[in-house]
């Protein structure tokens, strides 16, 4: 076993860090125009489509490390859905993907609310995926849809990310749906679970760093609040949950066909990284629940990542089924 980064992984993460430092600024990301221009840079960096079988041979572990690093840097672009999973899904379904990428819109057939996804406003088209439960398995269908005139409603335009829902169901009804191989799609969804776990780890690491910085500088009663054991122990617990999730995710990313490993990684990350971020509000006090501090962006993004490609509850239940 070797827990150090390989040379190409180290290079990948350095590039990600440099890009975050150079390009990521609050002014740029607060508009859809800014996010579109940043997405062009993501494509130029070779990160969109990294996992395509026709790509450069990057592994799921490479992709997970990249996703963790980008989300740690505060990146809220739809790297997992639009960047990595949409091309992979299109490839499995025999569809082509535009060079600039496509959004990923995934939903269960017959759901009671409009399908929603992150970052759709960046793209002209989306790979739509829907599934139906039949007995103990799922059947899958995939279609490419145009996002022009699709009735997109951006609910979170003011956030660092955007969350859009499809208010016009006709676009989905009239799409050319094609059945996709269930085992191939389940494999794609396992990769999605691993990558969203990695995103959660990156977000939680970023939040812990913010908390440590705050606790070390926020003075109350004549000393930094980080000198109090109540705060110290809460931060230690955050670190425990993050470390546990981080290496469970790395292991799963190295074994994406191991169902148990993937379920465990996503369940742990969705439970413990979100818990860590919730705990951060308590450490940072009143400013943390105002929109004037950035913590709420991280929290909301984590909640989205926790529920994409299966929530914690979904994965615990899957583990119960696997062990029965």
């Amino acid at each position, binding site marked *: 076993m070797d*827990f150090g980064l390989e040379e190409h992984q180290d290079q990948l993460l350095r590039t990600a860090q440099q890009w975050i430092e150079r390009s990521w600024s609050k002014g740029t990301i607060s508009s859809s125009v800014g996010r579109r221009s940043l997405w062009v840079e993501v494509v130029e960096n070779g990160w969109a489509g990294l996992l395509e079988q026709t790509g450069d041979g990057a592994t799921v572990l490479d992709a997970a490390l990249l996703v963790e690093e980008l989300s740690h840097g505060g990146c809220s672009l739809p790297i997992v859905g639009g960047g990595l999973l949409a091309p992979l899904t299109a490839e499995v379904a025999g569809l082509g993907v535009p060079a600039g990428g496509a959004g990923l819109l995934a939903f269960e057939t017959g759901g009671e609310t409009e399908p929603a996804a992150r970052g759709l406003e960046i793209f002209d088209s989306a790979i739509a995926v829907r599934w139906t439960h039949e007995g103990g398995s799922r059947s899958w269908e995939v279609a490419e849809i145009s996002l022009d005139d699709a009735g997109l409603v951006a609910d979170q335009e003011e956030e660092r990310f955007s969350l859009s829902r499809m208010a016009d169901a006709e676009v989905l009804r009239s799409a050319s749906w094609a059945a996709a191989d269930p085992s191939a799609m389940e494999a794609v969804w396992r990769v999605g679970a691993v990558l969203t776990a990695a995103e959660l780890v990156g977000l939680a690491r970023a939040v812990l760093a913010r908390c440590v910085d705050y606790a070390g500088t926020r003075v109350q009663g004549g000393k930094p609040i980080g000198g109090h054991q109540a705060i110290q122990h809460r931060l230690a617990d955050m670190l425990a949950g993050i470390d546990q999730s981080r290496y469970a995710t790395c292991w799963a990313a190295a074994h994406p066909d191991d169902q148990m490993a993937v379920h465990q990684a996503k*369940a742990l990350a969705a439970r413990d990284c979100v818990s860590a971020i919730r705990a951060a509000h308590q450490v940072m006090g009143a400013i943390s629940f105002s929109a004037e501090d950035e913590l709420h962006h991280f929290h909301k993004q984590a909640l989205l990542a926790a529920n994409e490609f299966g929530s914690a509850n979904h994965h615990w239940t899957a583990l119960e089924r696997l062990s029965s």
Partner: protein
Amino acid sequence: MHFTLPESAQAFRREVRDFLAERPMQDYPADATDGGYGTGPFSREFMRALGRRGWIGLTWPVELGGGGRPMIDQLVMLEELAFAGAPFGPLVGNDQWAQSLIRDSNDRLRDELLPAIAAGEATCWQGFSEPDAGSDLLALTTRAVRDGDEYVINGRKIWSSEAGAYTHGQLLARSESIEDAGSRANGLTMFVVPNDAPGLTLRPILAMTGEVYHYEAFLDDVRVPEWSVLGSEGEGFRELLRGLDRDRFWGRFTKPANLLTKLDQLDAHARSHRRDGRTIIEDSGIARRLVELRAEAAATRLLFHKLGWQLSNDLPVPYESALYKTMADELGQRVANLAADVLEQDTLIRREPHRFETEMHHLYLSSPGQTIAGGTSEVLRTTVATRGLGLAKG
């Protein structure tokens, strides 16, 4: 980053499994109780069997009688022993003792003890804590006074694991006054004292499990030769600190593997026993906790492998050993709580050895001590925050 074992380690794993399959583990007589750390009880016969294979000194230098094997082989062996429920209680502590002797000891002490440790004949307990020096270890009052080419030790130690069953104690005593030494951390010396030294009395402490695991040691004019000093005179506390991260790592490395085995046993029991008109596993609360604890145990196992990789590459470990030790012990308590909910009142009924219920009884009643021994969870969380996260001490 990769998670593949080298071929040599995989071959060694098979060798260990073959050895473990030769004889049922319960056939090895226990000479002391299981501390609940995932290493099982102490069986002298089992330790001798390991010694005959050269596995106690597996990683020691060849020129000192060791096997010269890489650390990953030792990790593989320990996990296999833990998965099998083998009675290897003193093995990891002894290895740390041996590593101290290899690193810091004088030739006389090393030459006398290493062969006996490698053969499974010499075993070591730790005499650090005192009645009024627990988490504040530097408050210890045991004194060692030089008298010619001997030291005379007087004092009292407590919570020494398996002291009555092992052969030697490793004791920390003040050999120079705080005033003369300049600080509480200076002037302390580490000694190796044989159990048959005149003036050493061991009092067993009955645990809430109904068994004896810890002892109190009384030292009344115990005389030891000057070559009994481990390391340098006055440097005992630094000697102890040097080994602390490694102690916490080795002391808990096998715990996740052991807990995974316990969870499998609990799972099997919950599927084969009924309560309230259904199998216990059909209780959704039980089923959910089982899969959650399995995931945590698997992840904690991985964290210990990561820490082992850091230590074997001499990388800094500012917080890892303190945090992962705490995580493993608190996980053990959650597994014990689940066992109590699966077994209900049977948790408190003592039965004959080598039964599932007996294992769970022991797991539950020994678990409260886990987060106290080897550094309380409270002290260790503070260590994580100050050493790991860089926060100021309160």
